[in-house]
């Protein structure tokens, strides 16, 4: 009989009246790779925090190694062999690799004196156990994300983890690094260590998981062998509805229209090389590729954040040199950042202020003071046009859901009347309903004549919405797919290099 590492029964948790988890039952067997899938807000991270002791469930039981716990403290969870690898990897950037690896053991042993030779031995052994070699004296803050993740995994293994929980581990990795990671995960499986792998990248899940569990709105809706679930099936259960197959591409023939944006041999040392493409007004151009492809840097370059080293950019046939964000704004280029919370929205400010943020210099009266009327009208217009659900424009933005927040960020860019709009991963962290509406909005904007660049790693989304797709790899343009050539399989294959 296979041993169970973890079992939770009837776990429920609410936050101030909102049910985050409802009657969750699941288990993880020894040496099993379990994938936990779900949209944002489905309850995945809440469950993890309960298992690791950070939160306490309102009701339900937790069995770890067949011990019953109603409530568990983080230290206890760690002692029982549960290791969570967080997105910051729980590493100290100012300390060395050796120290980061050995520090947990030092703390748990309760020792007061530090023996540096022992630290190095422990560190060396830890790295060898997962077949990795790193410079023990390097400062962790100077290492790449992939290397830091390896250290985090090594730490977990050293702590005699029986269950390692990884939260979206492939977010910041290149294709090669993802392959390395998967190899290590299979190694761990051989050592009878269980892995709980949280992800939303459905194509990866089919590759690595033994079993897949799907959460939706705080409930478990699927628990099956990974092989038995297709990608469509997973999507259906995650979202609760069939994927909209309606095509959002333009039906217009744009071949005779003069281009809005022409990029020629654009180069930024170390990031992207020799990029050339054009964009017609009314067209939605998708740019995709894995991490390291340079797509993010290209977007930032067009917006003036990372000015290019060489090459030319023409807007409506005039040469431009975009070296600052202010210059980009003057040229009516808009940008919706990838990390909404960090770079896009002012959570503590009102919705009205958020929407006005890009346009404030225009919302003035003849005394050069802010024209309150103009500002309020602007905000109301966008709240209306985008159906932003809020009782008042004066409420703070943090009161909005992810989808509504994203609409506010979009409105902010649009309020400045851009002719070229660049969107970077605009539907991440957004509920399904809003995702659909946002993609529709993008198509509507294009139909009104705006040129749009959509950067995303969500293949279905790109295929649905874009008229053309540029695939970038290692800083270069690898393929340009036209409307007629686009389908999911081709794109997936091209991305992982099988062609």
């Amino acid at each position, binding site marked *: 009989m296979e041993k169970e590492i973890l079992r939770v029964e009837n776990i429920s948790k609410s936050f101030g009246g909102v049910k985050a988890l409802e009657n969750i039952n699941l288990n993880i067997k020894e040496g099993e790779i379990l994938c936990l899938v779900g949209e944002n807000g489905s309850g995945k991270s809440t469950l993890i925090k309960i298992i690791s002791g950070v939160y306490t469930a309102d009701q339900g039981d937790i069995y770890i190694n067949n011990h019953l716990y109603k409530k568990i403290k*983080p*230290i206890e969870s*760690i002692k029982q062999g549960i290791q969570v690898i*967080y997105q*910051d990897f*729980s*590493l*100290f*950037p*100012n*300390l060395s690799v050796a*120290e980061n690896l050995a*520090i*947990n053991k*030092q*703390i*748990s042993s309760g*020792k*007061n*004196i*530090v023996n*540096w030779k022992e630290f190095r031995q422990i560190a060396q052994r830890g790295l060898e156990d997962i077949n990795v070699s790193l410079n023990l*004296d390097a400062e962790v803050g100077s290492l790449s*994300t992939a290397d830091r993740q390896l250290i985090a995994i090594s730490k977990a293994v050293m702590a005699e983890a029986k269950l390692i929980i990884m939260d979206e581990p492939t*977010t*910041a990795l290149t294709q090669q690094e993802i392959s390395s990671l998967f190899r290590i995960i299979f190694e761990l499986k051989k050592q009878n260590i269980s892995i709980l792998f949280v992800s939303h990248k459905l194509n990866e899940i089919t590759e690595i998981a033994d079993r897949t569990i799907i959460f939706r709105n705080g409930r478990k809706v699927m628990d099956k062998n990974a092989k038995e679930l297709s990608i469509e099936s997973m999507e259906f259960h995650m979202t609760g509805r069939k994927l909209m197959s309606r095509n959002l591409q333009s039906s217009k023939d744009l071949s005779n229209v003069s281009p809005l944006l022409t990029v020629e041999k654009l180069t*930024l*040392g*170390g*990031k992207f090389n020799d990029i050339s493409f054009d964009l017609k007004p009314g067209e939605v151009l998708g740019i995709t590729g894995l*991490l390291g492809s340079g797509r*993010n*840097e290209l977007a*930032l370059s067009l917006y003036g*954040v*990372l000015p290019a080293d060489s090459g030319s950019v023409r807007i409506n046939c005039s040469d431009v040199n975009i070296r600052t964000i202010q210059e980009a704004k003057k040229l009516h280029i808009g940008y919706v*950042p*990838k*990390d909404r919370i960090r*770079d896009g929205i002012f959570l503590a400010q009102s919705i009205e202020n958020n929407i006005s943020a890009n346009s404030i210099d225009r919302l003035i009266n003849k005394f050069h003071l802010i024209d309150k009327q103009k500002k309020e009208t602007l905000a109301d217009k966008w709240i209306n046009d985008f159906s932003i659900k809020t009782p008042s424009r004066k409420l703070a933005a943090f009161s909005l859901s992810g989808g509504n927040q994203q609409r506010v960020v979009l409105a902010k860019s649009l309020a400045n009347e851009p002719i070229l709009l660049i969107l970077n991963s605009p539907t991440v962290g957004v509920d399904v309903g809003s995702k659909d509406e946002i993609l529709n909005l993008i198509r509507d904007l294009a139909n009104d004549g705006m040129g749009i660049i959509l950067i995303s790693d969500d293949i279905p989304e790109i295929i649905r919405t874009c008229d053309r797709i540029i695939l970038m790899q290692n800083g270069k343009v690898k393929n340009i797919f036209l409307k007629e050539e686009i389908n999911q399989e081709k794109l997936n294959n091209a991305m992982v290099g099988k062609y």
Partner: protein
Amino acid sequence: MFRKIYSANEFVTFIIILLISIFIGLINPAFFSIASIFDVLRSSIVYIILALGLLPVMIVGGIDISFVAIGALSAYSTHMLLINNGYEGGVFLYYIIACSIGIIASFLNSILTTKFNLNIFNVSLALYIMWFGFVRFFVGSKRSATFPEGASNFYSKFLLTVKDPFVGNSNLHISILFVVIIGLVLMLILRYTTFGRGIYAIGGDRDVALRTGFKVNRILTGSFIIMGGLAAFAGITHSFLIRLFDPTMFLGDELDVIAAVVLGGASINGGRGSVIGTFMGVIVIQLIHRSIILIGIPVTWQDFIVGFILIIFISIPYLKTIIKEKLVDKKVAHEETK
């Protein structure tokens, strides 16, 4: 290995010391003498103790100015307490009582910072004013030069005496030994104890430190204890060396000490700093003061020069980053590119 030494902030500070020394020596060759070295060391002693006390708190990631007030409070109160009770013994009791007061006072810093999660600098600003007000109102505002019998010649207890052609006898007070011992002990603590590594860990990432299992509140309290205790120690040493107990001692000196610790390699954001670096940082500041006098700049313009140099020194690490960004690669600038 060699590369690590080159890039360390401590190395830069060391070079600065060499440069300034050569500069002074060129102007006044008498500088290259044992007497001068003793001179510099003497004026550094108290500052080094203060700076070493501040070091753990800065590594943890906070800026604090209350330590000077704690030093004044502890030293002056101890003196008043002993003198008014007819004490006639030696310095030992002074140190014991003062350090106890300093440590107890530091508990205010720790409680406010850990229990109420208040900002270290803000708390220190309030306590700075509070303690200086407290000591002058409740303990006394008069300076005192009366010393107990057993401690009256502490100031002249020298470790070394050297005959110098220019100034006659040049002396090195035994308190330099205190400095060396304190420095050594602190270095051992920072490098070889879990508590010490915890200080660096918290400075690196406080949340991760919590998750790893470090007893963050205890470590913070410990850092403040070191700060309070050493500030008191510095207060007593200072008062005995200048043979005067003044309740306003150290008032206004906090910036010099902070600058010294920063020059010695500590980062404003925490996570870095060393005992050796701090030693050197203090010496640099002292050399700057010295060279200003030697150049012949009138006393009234000294603050101007010191302020100016501080501005330059504080800008250096940031300038380094800016230059690195522009020349080497743009990787540093933007995390968006992930």
